[in-house]
């Protein structure tokens, strides 16, 4: 390793950087859903990872059926994605109505427990209804030819994940800042009672948040499953934990924060593995979390929230 020349060292660094960015985008894509739900009802939606897993399973079934009927290529990808988004959104909507709405005025711990309950329920439901085995997931995203020269650094699916994350973040920011529904959502987030008084249907706003969050989870599920190539009923748990960490790291409730948190986490893990050892990957990731929370308790770009009285 001493004989390694300068170009190789730089190349190695760039490869780690790109790998970290991809991993970070994966976390960010899931973290966006966490952060949106937290932003509006201050609930950590532990079942979010399960919605992500359901999205991946839906896409697997749809793409399986379509391949059986002879469809191929990009049309399968978009149809599978669309159905996964619709299906998961329906799940997210129902989840909120069943598990969280009845507890809206309960102490804050109750919906949290309810969320964990839903998470366990959905995992086991998929395990029983589908399988406990790992299932192969088809690579729906082709390896683009223009990437042939640098595909040892970044492949098609990785690039799509990176672009999607940035695109989704921009769209969300736009939606929340400038549209009618976005304004209503922000109003609901700031003060539910006041929002109601000025004529905002807060139930609809909360449902909308869950639908958007679940749609994002489904997009993440499909993209990541094609990237990794295998899914089982348990993938939501680990991805969910990491994404939640990313959301907290960036400042939960903040949309750019979730993306930044995801990228920081991904890069830390990648560099820790690359320059130290993958044995310590998680140690570095969580040490960073602790450090940042000590210095900035509300996350990297989280607002310092006043306690509501």
């Amino acid at each position, binding site marked *: 390793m001493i004989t390694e020349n300068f170009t190789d060292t730089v190349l190695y660094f760039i490869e780690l950087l790109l790998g970290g960015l991809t*991993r970070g985008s994966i976390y960010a894509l899931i973290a966006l859903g966490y952060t949106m739900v937290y932003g509006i009802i201050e609930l950590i939606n532990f079942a979010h990872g399960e919605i992500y897993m359901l999205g991946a399973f839906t896409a697997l079934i749809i793409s399986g059926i379509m391949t059986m009927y002879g469809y191929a290529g990009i049309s399968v990808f978009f149809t599978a994605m669309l159905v996964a988004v619709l299906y998961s959104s329906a799940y997210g909507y129902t989840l909120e109505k069943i598990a969280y709405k009845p507890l809206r005025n309960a102490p804050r711990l109750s919906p949290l427990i309810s969320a964990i309950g839903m998470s366990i329920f959905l995992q086991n439901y998929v395990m029983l209804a589908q399988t406990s085995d790992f299932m192969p997931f088809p690579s729906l995203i082709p390896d683009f030819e223009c990437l042939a020269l640098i595909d040892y650094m970044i492949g098609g699916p990785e690039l799509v994940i990176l672009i999607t994350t940035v695109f989704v973040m921009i769209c969300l920011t736009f939606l929340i800042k400038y549209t009618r529904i976005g304004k209503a959502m922000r109003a609901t987030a700031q003060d539910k009672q006041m929002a109601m008084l000025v004529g905002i249907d807060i139930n609809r706003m909360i449902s909308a948040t869950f639908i958007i969050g679940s749609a994002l989870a489904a997009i993440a599920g499909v993209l990541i499953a094609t990237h990794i190539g295998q899914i089982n009923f348990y993938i939501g748990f680990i991805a969910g934990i990491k994404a939640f960490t990313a959301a907290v790291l960036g400042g939960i409730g903040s949309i750019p924060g979730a993306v930044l948190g995801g990228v920081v986490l991904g890069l830390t893990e990648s560099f820790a593995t690359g320059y130290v050892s993958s044995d310590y990957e998680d140690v570095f990731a969580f040490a960073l979390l602790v450090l940042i929370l000590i210095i900035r308790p509300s996350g990297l770009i989280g607002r310092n929230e006043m306690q509501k009285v």
Partner: protein
Amino acid sequence: MNYIVKILAILFLPVFSGYALADTINLGVAGAHSGDLASYGLPSVKAAELVVDDINAKGGVLGKKVLIWAEDDACKPELATNTATRLVSKGVHVVMGHICSGATKAALGIYKDMNIVTMSPSATNPDLTQSGNYPNFYRTIASDDAQARLEVDFALNTLKITKIAVIHDKGDYGKGLATFAKKFIEQSGKAKVVLYEGITPGAVDYSAVIRKIKRSKAGAVIFGGYHPEASKLVSGIRKKRMNTIFISDDGVKDDTFIKVAKKYAEGVYATGPKDVSHNPMTIRATKDHQKKYGKDPGAFFLNAYSATLALLNAINKAGSTKYESIRMSLNNDFVDTPLGKIRFDKNGDAEGVGFSMYQVKNGKYVELKE
């Protein structure tokens, strides 16, 4: 020790009602016949009964009938010494047992002092044979490090690789294998371990580790762990257009691995238990078991069946029940068993028992014949 045991044996002799008759061959069968682990021990008693019935029907060994003396140790080391003493006092000539490594180790000293050959169907602790402390000990099961040994030998001698990356999944099974593999590579002096790392099971991807493998310029990866991580690693490596050879263990020798890794699985090596299901003796032993006991045989049945055969065959070939003659025969004479034609190396491990190397060819694991 020697004297104490002998004196004890003599003292206890009259206490036990049935002590061995001089004109029989006495086979001790020791192991867990009760308690939590009885399901590991009882099949060995049944195996011994089947073999002995068979042999007695054909006239016995050296013209004498074979008698089985079964004793329970419940897989507990502290009970195993009593078990051994009881068997010694009954005058057994050879012992098939014990079942658990801990209990076997505890009992072995007593058998050693009494010069009794002992053969376990299931004790896998590497030290039992490799330490050289128990010349009276043999076994018909591969030791815990056998897979790592096979992987390393294959990489070094068959594939002639000089730089190896050892990766594991931080679990007991995977890390244990990786530790052995690393040790064997270093001991051989033929190759270097250029990378030794643990990966987190279930992580979204392993791109950083894969880049590290690439940077280390390893010719092969030896992976200790299970198929979900292996398939992610292999697909990642191949997608990065690296042709690094991938060698793994029986946690990966699973059809799910091929199903998930698809075209990337092609060419992957994995060790797995030797396929003995087509051996006519295996088929016969299983049928006999079903006929006599009305159900399928349990754990370590074939190993115990083979051990009993090997012991009795050795007495027959040696022409006596003398310790040295039995040992000589075990090390030199081949015997046909359900596990194949076997004899034992100088440590007491059965040659050719245990694992084979498999390779994925056209979407199927194919056993590589040497």
